[in-house]
């Protein structure tokens, strides 16, 4: 997005600017830098789709931790800041553990509540905090020794510039890494993300911990800079300021929080001349900004600039030599998957009734039946999206999948393609497939932060594999198109490439041919056969009988949740009970 040249230029400008400004503006720049830290953290979490409005709590915890340590025990603010970051991260971890299972508005409101509770503790725990009076005399920041105490505004400015540059680099690396892609995946399509092996809970929890540590550092610096602590740091006004910075700047973009922090620190100050009307005007400007630039300043600026030239379509796409990765190379038995006596009841309705079947290694097994027969429910059970009322699902090595969440099921080599066109709509085709290769990455958190050579190699391999998969599904020339703009048929092919990206040993296809024209269906059939030829077992739910009869080795027929037939395509076509289920009979009609 940004050339390295422009980053260097911005940094150089930020380094020179305080030399020509008076203290008042330097002060504002320091405040922008301090607020940038928590805001960058919020942005990271928001990239994963979770908006926290309790971030002042962590900012305040940081401020009080290192402030109190310095005030009462003479701990150097430098070490106090480390403790503050650690404590904020710990509290954030605990809060996240409890709340990140919540989604959307619930999470937002619970985090507000958390900040409110912390504010009331700071107000009422008089012995520790002197309550609403606040704690004056917090020592100024030093670099570990009293002789390195910061004295002038400029010194404070340069230190916060270093801190926020580091935070910026950290967030930029994370957002552009496999971890960042996983966050985006969770935000855009959580079910799909889970199905390719991303634990929404885990990645957002990591984001939360980083976000809270950053807020703790910002708060700590704030306390030593202002040399005063009061429960006011927890006020909802501060939360509003932070959320305005992150959303107004441009959420989920790398530069957004920095731009937001600068603009929305200076804006209220510029409005000072309006005296009484200052806050009213601030609200009005905010409202107009939300209404006319809902995706933030950075996004609006990018729209103004002409669109970056799209890379030319690839002429020589790499070919894929291994579709299956990992487990399939250590094939143990002849059976890929066993479904044993699975029953699913929704209230009084039995959707699936004692269904048992096995999927052989490298087999294409079709699951057919009239609408409402329970086929998709079986899929949801197998892939962990639904826990059965009774029964078990076993993988070839005997691993019990019955109670595993979807992302764990993916780690066992089972990946599904959803019934509806299921892609990450705002990302390009190539990004979609790269995101879905998440499971194959090995780089840990710090390896991603420091962008180690091993991480780069891995990223290059993942990118290569994504290109190969697009070529395999015939989408190589659409690689840089945004997924939401692809035709329906192309989106289905992309969904297939996404499902293949984690390198499954068992692929579950839910009506892959639904809505496709005959030519596209033919292509899908050829792909499914090629996938099987490479050693992947396929479980197929399909209504298109040409496809079912054309590709399946065996067919299982479900009706009213019960298995009524199992056999080769030719036998199934002649089975009287199957014909009755599909066409209906006088008998069943009478009962209905």
């Amino acid at each position, binding site marked *: 997005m940004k050339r390295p040249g422009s980053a260097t230029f911005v940094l150089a400008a930020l380094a020179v600017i305080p030399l020509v400004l008076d203290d008042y503006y330097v002060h504002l720049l320091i405040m922008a830098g301090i607020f940038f830290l928590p805001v960058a953290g919020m942005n990271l979490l*928001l990239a994963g789709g979770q*908006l926290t409005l309790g971030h002042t709590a962590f900012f305040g915890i940081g401020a009080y931790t290192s402030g109190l340590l310095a005030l009462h025990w003479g701990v150097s603010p430098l070490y106090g800041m480390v403790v503050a970051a650690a404590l904020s991260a710990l509290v954030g971890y605990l809060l996240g553990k*409890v*709340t990140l*299972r*919540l*989604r*959307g*508005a*619930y999470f*937002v*409101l*619970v985090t*507000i*509540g*958390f900040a*409110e*509770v912390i504010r*009331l*503790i700071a*107000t*009422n725990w008089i012995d520790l905090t002197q309550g609403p009076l606040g704690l004056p005399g917090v020592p100024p920041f030093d670099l570990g020794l009293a002789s390195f105490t910061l004295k002038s505004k400029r010194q404070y400015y340069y230190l916060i510039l270093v801190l926020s540059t580091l935070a910026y680099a950290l967030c930029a690396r994370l957002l552009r890494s496999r971890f960042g892609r996983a966050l985006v995946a969770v935000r855009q399509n*959580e*079910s799909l993300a*889970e199905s390719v092996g991303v634990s929404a809970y885990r990645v957002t929890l990591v984001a939360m911990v980083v976000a809270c540590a950053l807020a703790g550092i910002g708060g700590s610096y704030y306390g030593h800079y202002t040399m005063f602590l009061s429960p006011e740091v927890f006020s*909802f006004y501060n939360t*509003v300021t932070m*959320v*305005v910075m992150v*959303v107004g700047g441009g*959420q989920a973009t790398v530069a957004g929080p920095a731009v937001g922090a600068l603009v929305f620190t200076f804006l209220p100050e510029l409005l000072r001349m309006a005296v*009484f*009307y200052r*806050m*009213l005007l*601030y*609200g*009005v400007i*905010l*409202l107009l900004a*939300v*209404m006319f630039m*809902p995706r933030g300043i950075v996004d609006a600026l990018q729209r103004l600039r002409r669109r970056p030239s799209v890379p030319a379509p690839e002429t020589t796409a790499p070919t894929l030599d291994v579709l299956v990765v990992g487990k399939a190379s250590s094939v143990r038995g002849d059976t890929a998957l066993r479904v044993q006596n699975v029953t699913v009841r929704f209230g009084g309705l039995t959707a699936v009734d004692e269904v048992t079947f096995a999927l052989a290694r490298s087999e294409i097994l079709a699951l057919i039946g009239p609408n409402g027969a329970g086929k998709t429910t079986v899929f*949801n059970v197998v892939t962990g*999206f*639904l826990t059965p009322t009774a029964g078990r699902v076993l993988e070839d090595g005997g691993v019990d999948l019955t109670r595993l969440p*979807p992302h764990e099921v993916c780690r066992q080599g089972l990946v599904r393609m959803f019934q509806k066109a299921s892609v990450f709509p705002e990302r390009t085709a190539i990004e979609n497939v790269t995101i879905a290769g998440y499971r194959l990455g090995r780089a840990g958190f710090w390896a991603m932060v420091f962008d180690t050579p091993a991480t780069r190699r891995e990223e290059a391999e993942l990118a290569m594999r994504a290109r190969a998969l697009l070529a395999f599904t015939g989408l190589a020339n659409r690689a840089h198109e945004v997924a939401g703009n692809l035709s329906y048929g192309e989106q289905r092919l992309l969904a297939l490439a996404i499902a293949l990206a984690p390198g499954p040993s068992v692929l579950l296809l839910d009506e892959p041919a639904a809505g496709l024209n005959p030519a596209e269906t033919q292509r899908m059939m050829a792909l499914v056969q090629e996938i099987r030829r490479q050693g992947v077992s396929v479980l197929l739910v399909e209504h298109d009988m040409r496809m079912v009869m054309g590709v399946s080795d065996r067919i299982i027929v479900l009706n009213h949740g019960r298995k009524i037939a199992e056999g080769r395509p030719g036998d199934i076509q002649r089975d009287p009970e199957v014909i009755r289920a599909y066409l209906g009979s006088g008998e069943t009609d009478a009962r209905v």
Partner: protein
Amino acid sequence: MLAELVQHVVNGLIIGGGYALMGIGLTLIFGIMRVVNFAHGEFYMLGAFLLFSLFGTLGINFFVASFVAIAAVGVAGAVVERVILRPLRGQAMEIPMLATVALSVILQNAAILAWDPSPKTIRHPFSPIPIVLGPIHVVAIRIFAGVAAVALIIGSHLFIQRTRLGKAMRATFQDGEMARLVGVDVDRVYMATFSFGAALAGASGVLLGSVFWVYPAMGDQAAMKSFAVVIMGGLGDFLGAIAGGLLLGVAESLGAAYISSGYKDAIGFIVIILLLLFRPAGLFGRRDRLR
């Protein structure tokens, strides 16, 4: 001892009625429009201030003034929906939410300009001498506030269940797309919902504003309370909001009396965090994995 307990419960229920009204408004707006209304507290404040001006300054009859204040807040809600929220429909959740945050900044600061920041009281026409009901004492205005809150809650319930508009609202709540297909004017439903929700917050402000103080920032705490109420009751759950409101009122009243008055305002959220610890799947376990 017991009399004291009963006294606290009764006080809690009266305030809880106000919380329930706030909560119903917020929960309807969220359930139908998927908007978390951060200006809810400001509608509450607006209701109280309009009553203060109409009754206290202009001298209009207290009951008439209350009614006009509530209706005016409803109209303000309709305007906000049409001008601010409708153009933002279809955006990610945080966008309309942020717009209501901005609105709350605007309204609160406008109130500071219109009616200075000092707290005011509404000199309601009820006698200040407490009425003795067996072991407990309640002032008349509180009884009025409690009875009026109950009447409004029942009225809202009937409105949602019985009227055509209420039915359209419930249909939109269940499935907006489907409702549109069968001919529900969804735009009208949204406007009515936001207007109605705002009016309920305004009503709560009228009632609790008569009992307590009236000041521009009074909505902040009220909004916090209604957030707690709707999380406890379940976002979008009408009966849950009533139960949550009454429960929070009583819990606060008892907590302030027997535990600590300083932490009174935290009780709702402490309860929520404890609930989350024991029900990690979410408060009501309704979240299914397939969305």
